[in-house]
């Protein structure tokens, strides 16, 4: 290996590794604070403005847009060089484990295709052990993070409403964008759930339902920082509101939804404080003679050269497992088990979200007059967890909650349109089949539970010493075990949804399981993997402090999903961004005072 001459050591105040939710937000906040930031992204450059297939039809795509091994979520899904596999970058699972690891190799990472569901963790979610004795507490409270949830939502643009429900926090007044009008099937579901005591309320998604008031928002976010105010206002004013068509998972050329290449990186670049290097696959954080982080090694994917760059501080935001992999691969004299891994907890307490669902047909929705139902692409309404009291009273056989995501409607026909009708139509073909398709159009709905997994010692990743990737970097091996809490929760989900379908007068088309191991999605499949470098109050029992700062290496931070102590049912991206903002404020202050 030959390292070229370093880019003047400590030329950059911060090296940020990864440009997704955590890294993109860190780069924006740090650059606004005046720090000189070098952002390294393993994937290629990517521009949603020019690359998004906004109105392309399924019939213009190979296989009518069907998912393949190369493009698992469909041809038009924004993901570049990724999915469950990345070419030349394998991973493995221990015997009996089937972990699925979704990655992307592109600027913005997984923020380009994500579901945009943006739910705040609530007060209970930060202190789960104090509440029910399981898992571990976070070293911070909801009140500590609440101001950063407000800031993140103001900056990102999140639609939703304040319902004041238990452990489902309100945003501050004026923070949320107005929620879109509910669709027909969402209203029908709401009415069916009313008698069951299940709340159906406006969802929170990172999609603009109206133009941003850039001047007012920027003033609120950065009252004492003229540069930050200017770049933020300009970037916000370039974003348009949703025009109620085209799937968000393709990306958004009008910048109506959140992805870091359209929302975080343009204002960060406009400060003049940010450099971005793409195709830079980081493999190791180096340390100096004082045991501080000195920089990183990366492989230039185009030349396959090994490059070293130095910086005053390093922020890993490569995704929970990839950041753990970098730490475990950063072995040196004082850190024989990986950088900042004195606790032995790097890679440990890996979590995903519990997923289980049902698919159903609702006769009331047959033959409805045709009308626009694409809306904001994803859900306009959802069900937050509603059984906190029953759970605490020990009336359920699982300890933590789930929320419900659901969908349906008169959507654009794509691959699979009216597939699987054989059992519903008694094997119709010919003229009768054609008429059955017209009748059934828009009458299918699905319900997906998204539940909290309690961290356990049997779910973790470690280095696979037998396997290098194509860059010569040791890869990860995954271990996994569900507890009864997750398995019972998955069964509860399916049975609850079957009850909702029954209430709606419909029939469930999928199998409702009584065996949790059959109901639950594969580990990793919900793509909410968090943990692997958890934060805490005690260096012997955590990797990071509450500012995502390494206990052992104070100029090393981890700002993706890795610091998560628990994995509430709330989708993690909003919390990753709020934590990254809070930690970046702290880091910038440390730089300013010279502490780092």
């Amino acid at each position: 290996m030959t390292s070229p001459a370093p880019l003047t050591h400590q030329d950059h105040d911060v090296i940020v590794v990864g440009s997704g939710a955590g890294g993109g937000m860190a780069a924006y906040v740090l650059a606004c604070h005046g720090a000189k930031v070098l952002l390294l992204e393993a994937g290629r450059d990517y521009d949603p403005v020019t690359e998004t297939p906004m109105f392309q039809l399924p019939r213009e795509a190979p296989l009518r847009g069907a998912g393949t091994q190369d493009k698992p979520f469909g041809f038009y899904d924004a993901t570049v060089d990724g999915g469950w596999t990345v070419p030349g970058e394998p991973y493995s699972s221990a015997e009996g484990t089937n972990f699925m690891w979704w990655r992307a190799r592109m600027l913005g990472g997984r923020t380009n295709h994500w579901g945009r569901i943006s739910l705040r963790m609530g007060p209970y979610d930060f202190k789960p052990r104090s509440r029910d004795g399981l898992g571990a507490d976070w070293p911070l409270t909801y009140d500590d993070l609440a101001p950063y949830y407000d800031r993140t939502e103001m900056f990102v643009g999140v639609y939703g409403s304040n319902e004041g429900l238990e452990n489902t926090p309100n945003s501050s007044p004026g923070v949320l964008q107005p929620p879109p009008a509910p669709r027909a099937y969402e209203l029908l579901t709401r009415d069916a759930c009313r008698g069951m005591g299940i709340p159906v309320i406006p969802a929170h998604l990172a999609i603009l339902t109206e133009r941003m008031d850039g001047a007012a928002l920027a003033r609120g976010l950065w009252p004492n920082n003229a540069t930050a105010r200017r770049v933020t206002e300009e970037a916000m004013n370039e974003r348009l509101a949703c025009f109620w068509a085209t799937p968000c998972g393709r990306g958004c050329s009008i910048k109506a939804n959140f992805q870091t290449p359209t929302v975080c990186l343009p204002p960060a670049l406009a400060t003049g404080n940010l450099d971005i290097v793409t195709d830079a696959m980081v493999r190791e954080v180096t340390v100096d003679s004082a045991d501080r982080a000195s920089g990183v090694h990366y492989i230039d994917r185009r030349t396959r050269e090994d490059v070293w760059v130095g910086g005053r501080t390093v922020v890993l935001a490569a995704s929970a497992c990839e950041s753990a992999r970098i730490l475990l691969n950063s072995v040196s004299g004082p850190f024989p088990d990986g950088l900042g891994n004195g606790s032995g907890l790097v890679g440990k307490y890996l979590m995903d979200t519990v997923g289980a669902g049902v698919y159903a047909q609702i006769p009331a929705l047959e033959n409805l007059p045709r009308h626009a139902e694409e809306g904001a692409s994803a859900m306009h309404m959802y069900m937050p967890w509603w059984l906190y009291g029953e759970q605490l009273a020990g009336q359920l056989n699982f300890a933590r909650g789930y929320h419900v995501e659901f969908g349906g409607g008169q959507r654009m026909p794509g691959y699979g349109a009216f597939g699987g009708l054989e059992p519903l139509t008694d094997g119709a073909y010919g003229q009768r089949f054609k008429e059955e398709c017209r009748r059934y159009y828009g009458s299918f709905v699905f319900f997906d539970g998204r539940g909290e997994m309690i961290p356990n010692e049997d779910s973790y990743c470690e280095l696979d010493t037998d396997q290098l990737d194509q860059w010569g970097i040791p890869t990860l091996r995954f271990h996994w075990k569900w507890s009864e809490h997750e398995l019972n929760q998955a069964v509860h989900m399916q049975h609850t949804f079957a009850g909702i379908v029954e209430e709606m007068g419909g029939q469930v088309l999928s199998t409702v399981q009584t065996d949790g191991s059959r109901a639950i999605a594969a580990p990793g499949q919900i793509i909410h993997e968090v943990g692997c470098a958890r934060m805490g109050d005690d260096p012997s029992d955590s990797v990071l402090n509450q500012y995502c700062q390494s206990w052992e290496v104070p100029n090393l931070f981890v700002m993706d999903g890795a610091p998560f102590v628990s994995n509430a049912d709330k989708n993690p991206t909003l919390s990753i961004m709020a934590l990254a903002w809070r930690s970046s404020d702290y880091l910038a202050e440390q730089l300013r005072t010279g502490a780092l």
Partner: protein
Amino acid sequence: MSGVTRRRMLKTLAAGAAGAAGAVGSAGCGGDGRPGDSGGAARGSGAGRAAGGPGNPLAAGTPTDPDLINPTVPWDSVLTEDELRRLAALCDVIIPADDRSPAAASIGAQDFINEWVSAPYEGNQNDLTLIRGGLAWLDREATARFGSEFSGLPAAQARAICDDICMESRAAPEFKTAARFFDRVRDLTSTAFWTSAEGMEDLGFVGNRPMASFEGPPREVLDLLGITP
């Protein structure tokens, strides 16, 4: 190119000039020796971009990084002309013409199925075997029962065969395999038909066009469902 991208590239180039090896290339083009690049990425080539062609200059043009704006099918189709002709006859039995829209073959359902079974993925290759074998079986069955290949049968005779294989759960044991073939062709024909311009119009799909506002369901729909917003 957007202003943002240009600024990003300028910043990146500046970093390169300062000595960050590897930075210079990040302003470079897709398909430029990117890992997994098969070399067939003409759309991503520098020449294409300089010429202002329609290709996406950033996409590598590989199966995992295709040009999403200008999709192409990168594999050759494998079914023979004769197989396509026989398949078209079955597609038309599955979705015939009526007063609202044409039959499946006239919108090219058999060509989509050809694209499908020719794809290099495992599931598609399994379908190739299923559908080729099924087509051969269909003509043997038609000949044995009625003395003609399937495409030449009068409607009543074609239906007689299809009725035996249109539903696997109640098909006789000797027809189970053929029923799986029939169901797969029915599903693929359905995809082909309902995603076509004619099929989408028949279905009455409303969407894929910008709207100034989203108002939710019209009054008529709410009344039919008996709900108040």
